[in-house]
């Protein structure tokens, strides 16, 4: 009997197995499909397939006016739409050579940082959910809800906000909004410490599944074009907010947290620390918020006039009509690349203008697209459960990846 069993074991044949993970899979954060070649549990080859959400944003934008292309940007990274809009507006403002008023810049900075908080807590929470820590997910959605309510209070929308405008923001924020947000920032650092970090920082399963997994060195990470917390986890302090400040980022104080080992755990730590820094930025912005208009008053050929003027003043009505139907007729000819730091990394807008009211070419450099491309590098040679950890750690949104 014993002898039979040993012969059976030696004759046991193994072969490589190819499995398709996704596009419908709870741990792929959207419609990402990975074709994995497995030898036992080891991943030999990983081939990502993207494009399931391709909507042709770049082509659509070429056929729209600058103002009407704005809502398309909401739908890139749909959980941080405010940052995308801010990025687009900053890029177009620089192309036109106009400047948003100070108050609008501060408001946009506040909004971007609120988005960063809500995106990072979703990112970390779903990441934790994928590898076995469920409670964080429930807590983080509770806190994100507060932020979404604040968005709703300001602009009426919770997700696809379209709140920033070329040359400022759509409307001023209320005092109630500022008070509520300030209250939120008072208690948030405590929530991070007591409710997020204690839940998973000492969790042995979490530590074993994140420490030393998906390691990428600083040089390699730069070579792959990684940005955002995914790059900073490897110890590179590259942050567009510091390297090429826009809006009010040069007027507030904050640190750029970096990791050391470049593994899943360090990237998670970076995101947690960024939550605190964003909290700090929001508080500074509210304290320093200057009074004044929220739309550039001296650029009527590029920015929408205030609504009450449109209804009473002939010239404003004409400007509004032309801007919406034809786009700005005085757009300069030229090209510009503007990068902004969105929660996922560096979102770049490369706009070529031919002087008409529509962009001749609008290119979106999406961080998630680059981050998915590094998955084979992180996964090959690792075991199958680490693939899930690696997908979580690069924090992707497929709407942005596929555009």
């Amino acid at each position: 009997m014993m002898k039979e069993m040993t012969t059976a074991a030696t004759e046991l044949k193994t072969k490589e197995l190819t499995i398709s993970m996704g596009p419908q899979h709870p741990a792929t954060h959207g419609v990402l499909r990975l074709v994995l070649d497995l030898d036992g549990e080891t991943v030999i080859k990983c081939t990502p397939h993207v494009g399931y959400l391709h909507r042709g944003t770049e082509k659509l934008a070429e056929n729209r006016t600058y103002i009407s292309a704005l809502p398309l940007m909401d739908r890139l990274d749909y959980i941080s739409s405010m940052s995308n809009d801010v990025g687009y507006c900053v890029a177009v403002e620089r192309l036109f050579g106009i400047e948003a008023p100070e108050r609008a810049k501060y408001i946009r900075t506040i909004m971007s940082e609120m988005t960063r908080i809500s995106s990072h807590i979703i990112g970390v929470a779903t990441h934790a959910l994928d590898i076995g820590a469920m409670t964080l997910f429930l807590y983080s959605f509770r806190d994100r809800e507060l932020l979404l309510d604040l968005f709703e209070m300001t602009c009426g929308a919770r997700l696809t906000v379209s709140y920033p405008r070329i040359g400022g923001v759509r409307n001023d924020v209320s005092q109630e909004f500022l008070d509520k947000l300030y209250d939120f920032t008072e208690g948030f650092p405590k929530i991070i410490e007591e409710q997020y970090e204690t839940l998973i920082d000492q969790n042995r399963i979490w530590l074993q599944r994140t420490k030393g997994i998906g390691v990428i060195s600083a040089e390699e990470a730069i070579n792959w074009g990684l940005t955002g917390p995914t790059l900073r986890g490897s110890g590179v302090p590259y942050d567009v907010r510091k390297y090429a400040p826009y809006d009010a980022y040069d007027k507030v104080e904050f640190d750029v947290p970096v990791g050391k080992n470049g593994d899943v755990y360090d990237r998670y730590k970076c995101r947690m620390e960024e939550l605190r820094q964003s909290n700090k930025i929001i508080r500074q912005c509210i304290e320093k918020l200057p009074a004044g208009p929220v739309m550039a008053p001296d650029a009527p050929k590029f920015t929408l006039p205030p609504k009450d003027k449109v209804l009473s003043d002939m010239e404003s009505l004409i400007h509004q009509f032309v801007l919406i139907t034809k786009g700005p007729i005085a757009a300069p000819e030229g090209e510009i690349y503007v990068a902004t730091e969105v929660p996922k990394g560096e979102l770049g807008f490369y706009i070529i203008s031919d002087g008409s009211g529509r962009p001749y070419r609008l290119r979106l450099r999406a961080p998630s697209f680059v981050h998915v491309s590094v998955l084979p590098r992180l996964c090959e040679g690792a075991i199958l459960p680490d693939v899930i950890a690696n997908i979580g750690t690069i924090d992707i949104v497929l709407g942005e990846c596929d555009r």
Partner: protein
Amino acid sequence: MEPKEIAEIIRDRYPAEVKEIKEFRGQVSVIVKKDRIKEIMKYLHDAPELYFDYIEDLCGVDYLGRKEPRFEVVYHLYSIRHRHIIRIKAEVPEDDCAIDSVTDIWAGANWHERECYDLFGIAFNGHPDLRRILLPEDWEGHPLRKDYPLKADLGEMEWKGYKEVLETAKRNKQYEA
């Protein structure tokens, strides 16, 4: 280093390759011929005073009817060590629609090049895995070209994946109450 100085360095080193240097709102573009693009890129990556270690972006542009040659491949390079940026534009004609790949200099260029191939039909010589990326493998045409319509009734030319979906929907209609 100022982008203008970088452009001058490139022109001094490759006088025959650089066609034009343009500036708009402080950003400088260097327009080059495509033949020795890889050599130029390698130099930009390796030279210690330039050290462009990070490729921010790579994309195609179609200038149909506005300019000859028709296409341009645009590289945005950034140096994290020196904090400077430069834009390189390589001209690609329609009849020889290919350019050397820079994937072995920057690994991050891999998917950008695939996307450029997918949406513009510009081939990248020496690319390890040049396939369509955002569109299905059997898609016809390159949508970001200017002669590709935004909206059209394609009739028989319609993508066959879409036709299958329509047929399935028609078949499933009978099960509706």
